[in-house]
């Protein structure tokens, strides 16, 4: 009997002093902060001038052109090529516009809801 009590106490340790606490797992939402980058500076385009030249107005064009530019030298575009150039520019404009809208979409998508901000 005198041996039994110390044996029991030693084998049970301190388990009877305090009950085992249950493990609690908590999932906490951590917000990712995505900085919005500043946009590139806007484009500044210089004006250009197209001359419409026909057989009838060639002499008039020649005098005017030399007066404005000094020499009679330049680059000639056919009407078809001018149309192609205009369509190419329109295509570039479309691409820029759509690219910009997609950037705005993503900026809005990563911006938190106003209600959520108020709660915080």
């Amino acid at each position: 009997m005198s041996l039994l009590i110390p044996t029991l106490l030693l084998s049970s340790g301190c388990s009877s002093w305090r009950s085992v606490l249950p493990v609690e797992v908590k999932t906490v939402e951590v917000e990712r902060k995505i900085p919005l980058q500043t946009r590139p500076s806007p484009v500044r385009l210089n004006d250009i001038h197209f001359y419409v030249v026909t057989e009838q107005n060639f002499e008039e064009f020649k005098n005017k052109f030399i007066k404005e530019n000094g020499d009679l030298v330049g680059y000639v575009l056919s009407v078809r090529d001018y149309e192609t150039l205009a369509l190419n520019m329109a295509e570039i404009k479309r691409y820029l516009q759509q690219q910009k809208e997609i950037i705005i979409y993503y900026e809005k998508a990563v911006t938190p809801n106003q209600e959520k901000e108020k709660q915080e």
Partner: protein
Amino acid sequence: MLKIYILIVVVGLVGGVVYGGYYYYKDTQSRIQTLTENSARLEAVTKEQDNTINVLVKDQQKFEELNIELQSKLDKANEYKDVLIGKLRKHDLAKLSMQKPGLIEKRINNGTNKLFKSLEELTVIESPDSNTSTQ
């Protein structure tokens, strides 16, 4: 002597009943406490889940709206080219240039300037309000 035995048995029985009652009371109190804690925890978890669901639903609505808005703007970006193609199909530019070179020159230069201006406006910074955002 018999009375003493009976008394011991009765006292034992009464004691057993009293101890049983006390044990039952303590056990019930403990259960009630555990259940109350569980209920409170479940309530908090339910509330948190509701909040999460609400946030997800709001996000979904927000993305749907943004997608519709984006699609509409992407379609609108095609307008300029479509109008230009229509104009070039409608008018014979070579013929018109032969007939009225001065007028066409003015028109194409105005059109070019207008296009350059629109490209400049397109690249203007609109919303420099906030530098950081969260997701």
